[in-house]
């Protein structure tokens, strides 16, 4: 029968259960240390284009570190040492000619706590575009509306675009932040626990949004919520102690994982 997975490697090494048809990001032999602490160990994986990929694993497994490495957030930290390569559409993101600001436009990031700027809803979304400059008011209006529509927030805020972003609820603020990121037309959206501070309804709206956005861009999600990873992602990578353990289609990883370590984690067992 063809459904049976091929035999696993004898010992060690991650199990990677799929070959992406088109990858957007490629991580090759990435190791990363904070001072003396090794957070990622020789990790390699490919993130498929226009799909949702989830990184899961216990606290301290390196999933957020990996996510942050994808748009060079570690550049700000002098203590971080990094080796290996990260390719965005085939180009090394650490190459000298790559501008960090442009990289972060292409690879947007949304954090756990919504962080709208202390300005109006409209200005929040327009912020990144104004930094880029050269956009007329009329065009700006269109992009702001498109971004808010894409973030499934437009209908709730269209009558009060001038109000402060702080007047929005937590879930709305998070969608505003996503709209702000979308406005500069990124290719990749990194989401670090985007719904962990939200109530269940807002969480479902964010998840619905993630599903809809994948027709436009590549999404990478870090979450502690296994059901959320199971609900929204197409592929799931399980990390433990800075290593990739198992990476495969979410459908099979959550019903029939190949490794005991993965099984123990997703079912809440002691290792």
């Amino acid at each position, binding site marked *: *029968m063809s*459904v*049976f997975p091929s035999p*696993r490697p004898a010992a060690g090494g991650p199990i990677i259960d799929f070959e992406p048809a088109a990858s957007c990001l490629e991580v090759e032999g990435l190791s990363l240390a904070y001072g003396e602490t090794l957070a990622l160990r020789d990790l390699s994986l490919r993130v498929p284009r226009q799909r949702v990929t989830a990184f899961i694993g216990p606290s301290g497994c390196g999933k957020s570190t990996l996510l942050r490495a994808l748009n060079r957030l570690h550049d700000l930290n002098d203590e971080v040492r990094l080796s290996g390569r990260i390719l965005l559409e085939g180009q090394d993101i650490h190459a000298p000619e790559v501008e960090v600001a442009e990289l972060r436009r292409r690879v947007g990031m949304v954090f756990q706590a919504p962080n709208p700027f202390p300005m109006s809803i409209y200005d929040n979304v327009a912020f990144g575009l104004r930094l880029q400059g050269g956009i007329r008011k009329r065009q700006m209006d269109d992009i702001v509306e498109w971004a808010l529509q894409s973030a499934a927030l437009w209908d709730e805020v269209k009558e009060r675009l001038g109000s402060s972003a702080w007047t929005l609820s937590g879930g709305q603020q998070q969608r505003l932040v996503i709209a702000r990121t979308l406005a500069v037309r990124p290719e990749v959206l990194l989401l670090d626990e985007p719904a962990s501070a939200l109530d269940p309804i807002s969480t479902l709206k964010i998840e619905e949004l993630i599903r809809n956005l994948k027709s436009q861009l590549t999404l990478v999600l870090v979450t502690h919520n*296994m*059901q959320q990873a*199971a609900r929204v992602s197409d592929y799931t990578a399980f990390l433990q102690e800075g290593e990739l353990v198992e990476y495969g289609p979410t459908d099979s990883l*959550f*019903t*029939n*994982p*190949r*490794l*005991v370590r*993965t*099984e*123990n984690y*997703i*079912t*809440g*067992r*002691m290792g």
Partner: protein
Amino acid sequence: MDITSDIHSRHISRQFNQELEELKTHLMAMGGLVEKQIQEAVVALLDGDSDLARRVVENDRAVNDMQIKIDGECTQVLARRQPAASDLRLVLAVIRAASDLERIGDEASKIARNAADLIEGNNGSRGFVEVRMISEHVRRMVRDALTSFARFDTELALKLVHEDEEVDEEYRTAMRSLMTFMMEDARSISPILSLMWILRSLERIGDHANNLAEYVVYLVKGLDIRHTDPDDLDERAITRKE
């Protein structure tokens, strides 16, 4: 990866361990009752005990109640725990197994009803040899299916999948010989038809035992072997220890 029969006792939540253990325990209890129903239905026929036949028919309600109880417990686990991986496969396997056990219970009850008719008609013991032989075979299959479920034993489960083919052959042979009785003596048609229904029920019980064995393979290996010809099964994949 393989799972072993103690895997469901290693959760961080002990309450969850207990809930899953209870599912297995209750399924085994249901299996025990169903086994007894088959045995008593056949004994009622062979011994001409119409009281026993009536009791078997009445007891079918207890089997049905157990299925409802187990389904309710599975629903609770799904709603409260959102189980994944082997936990999810256990819950699904238990729901399916309880459904097949309930159907086996129905077949036992049908055997008892037909036995009561035969006893009343006082038709001698023609065909009893076949009933005895096939009933022993399928009862052993049900018992082995439950054992393989309790031990997560895919080797035993695989053996059952092949055994069901033997039962089907025994059933066909028995039907042919009963058919000749009917052709020889038109007055025997009615009692022989009752016997044929009994054999048919026994053969169906074999099919349900076969289903139970398939759920064990799904539970342990994550492989869905339903609707696969037994000759096409990848036996190595099913019995390989990982």
